């Protein structure tokens, strides 16, 4: 496991709804450490947890049973946009970053005992890259290796169909993309994922804006559409491009916050500390 794919700790802002016991505070009651309430023995027939003191104090003389909160498992999904624009190789290969991310998230989820799944989309959901929630690290590693060589196709509308592959109950969804899509489309995606706890990971690269040359003729070809455009680069234009990206940054932040999730901008390749910090910040 390389430095990029270290696990990190994550937690969820709200209690998890899940039948299976796991590591996250949930809404299920059962075998746990945290006392939740007393219940009658009839309602919860677990004689091991009879609270004698509470039973004596009960005016109706019923046996009181301690009810503990059970920690639940959560399904963790990495929903990746693998459109052509994600094939951009600047300082870092974005597909490689996605693969690193997948390995790191899978490692973290497996440490918690959570199920981890992977969904990739371009024009539609890539069914051959789909991993349903599970705990099989080997398959994830094989997939991560395959991701790096995957030929990318244009289009990101597959994100709109991705919720069909997600579970019906609340799941933790890491949504990784460069989000170079029109904002209405982004809103539609977020609306469809509103059931889940979405962590938007905005995958940018500094080569897209600040690493452009200062002077000279520069032709850019859009990875999605293949259109070419010639720029006469000069410091003023470069500043404008940087401003455009800064504006986009705040626009994205605004939109994600409107849907109750804070985006994490990843511009220098994937480091698990960044995600760990993100979750610490969110909890605080």
């Amino acid at each position, binding site marked *: 496991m390389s430095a990029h794919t270290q696990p990190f700790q994550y937690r969820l802002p709200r209690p998890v709804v899940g039948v299976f016991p796991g590591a996250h505070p949930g809404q299920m009651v059962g075998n746990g450490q945290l006392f939740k309430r007393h219940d009658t023995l009839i309602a919860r027939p677990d004689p091991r947890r009879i609270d004698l003191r509470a039973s004596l104090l009960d005016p109706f003389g019923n046996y009181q049973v301690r009810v503990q909160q059970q920690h639940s498992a959560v399904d963790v999904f990495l929903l990746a946009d693998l459109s052509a624009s994600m094939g951009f190789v600047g300082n870092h290969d974005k597909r490689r970053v996605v693969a690193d991310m997948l390995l790191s998230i899978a490692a973290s989820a497996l440490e918690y005992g959570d199920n981890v799944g992977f969904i990739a989309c371009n024009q539609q959901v890539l069914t051959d890259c789909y991993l349903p929630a599970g705990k099989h690290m080997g398959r994830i590693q094989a997939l991560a290796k395959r991701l790096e060589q995957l030929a990318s196709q244009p289009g990101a509308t597959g994100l709109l169909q991705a919720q069909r592959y997600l579970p019906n109950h609340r799941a933790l969804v890491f949504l990784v993309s460069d989000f170079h899509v029109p904002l209405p489309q982004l809103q539609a995606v977020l609306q469809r994922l509103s059931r889940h706890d979405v962590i938007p990971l905005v995958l940018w690269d500094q080569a897209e804006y600040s690493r452009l040359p200062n002077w000279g*003729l520069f032709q850019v070809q*859009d990875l999605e559409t293949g259109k070419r455009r*010639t720029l006469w*680069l000069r410091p003023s234009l470069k500043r404008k491009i940087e401003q455009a*990206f800064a504006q986009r940054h705040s626009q994205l932040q605004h939109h994600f916050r409107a849907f109750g999730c804070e985006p994490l901008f990843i511009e220098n390749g994937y480091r698990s500390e960044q995600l760990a910090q993100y979750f610490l910040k969110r909890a605080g």
Partner: protein
Amino acid sequence: MNLGLEYPWVLAGLLLCLLPIFRLGAVANPYPWQAILPPDPLSQAISGLIRLLGVLAIGGLTLGLAGAYLQEQQVERIGHGAHIVMLLDRSNSMDNTFAGKAPDAQGEESKANAARRLLNQFVDHRQHDLIGVAEYSTSPLFVLPLTENKAAIHAAIDATALPALAYTNVSKGLSMALEFFDSRPVTGSRIVLLVSDGAAVIDPDSEAALRELFKQRQVSLYWVFLRTANSPGLFEIPDDPRDDNAQAMPERYLHLFFNSLHIPYKAYEAETPGALQQAVDDINRLENRPLHYFERIPKQDLSTRCYAFAAVMLLLLLGVKLCEARP
């Protein structure tokens, strides 16, 4: 502008001009999202300019390969001048000096030589004239039709440097000189400049024919008589009336004949090169009527210019290529 092409099928290559419109030839740097790049009019203008350069370079090369040329053209002009036919005597005696000897010593000049030199100067002075050259000896020699091509006229005059021929047959020479004006519009002056050093008898038949021709053609006649020393002059009346006949004094009788034609006529008796100069100056001064004529501009090859133009465009494109930035 009459553009002509040596190989018109090469023009199919002009389709290649579309290439720079579709592709710029610059290295395409992949970029994730173009829509985020702010619009930049300067970049657009430069991109358009580069495309234009490419189109022009390919167009220039194609036109050069197709062998573009400007067709021969006629430009209508109005100038001052005349149609002049030079009728030069090519008899033996022209190769002698004014003293009647063969030129041997330094500084001596034959009559033909002097005539040649002065006529060349004369041609240089007459910018817009159409000049034709005819010669006569035993029979008339057609040398050069009426033309404005100064180089050809000079060459025709210089060609008289060849040793002269035999005798003098003025009447045939004159009728040939007059034929030069056939099917020419009557514009400007029409001049026959007869340069000779002697004359011959004109028989009555050709005399009548010449009379008619001179009348029809509305020609003025200048006769530069290169008089050899001690030979009878044009205006000399012999002492002995018995000698006053055409056989004895053909020059005088030819002069009389020309006078009787009732056309503008002037005779110059040149005994030295200086006097010949006087005759030429007179013509220069007098015969400058408005002349309506067509100037011919020869076919001009444009392919060199096309290649030069394309080379400039390619150099500019090379400069653009060097301006290309690498990420």
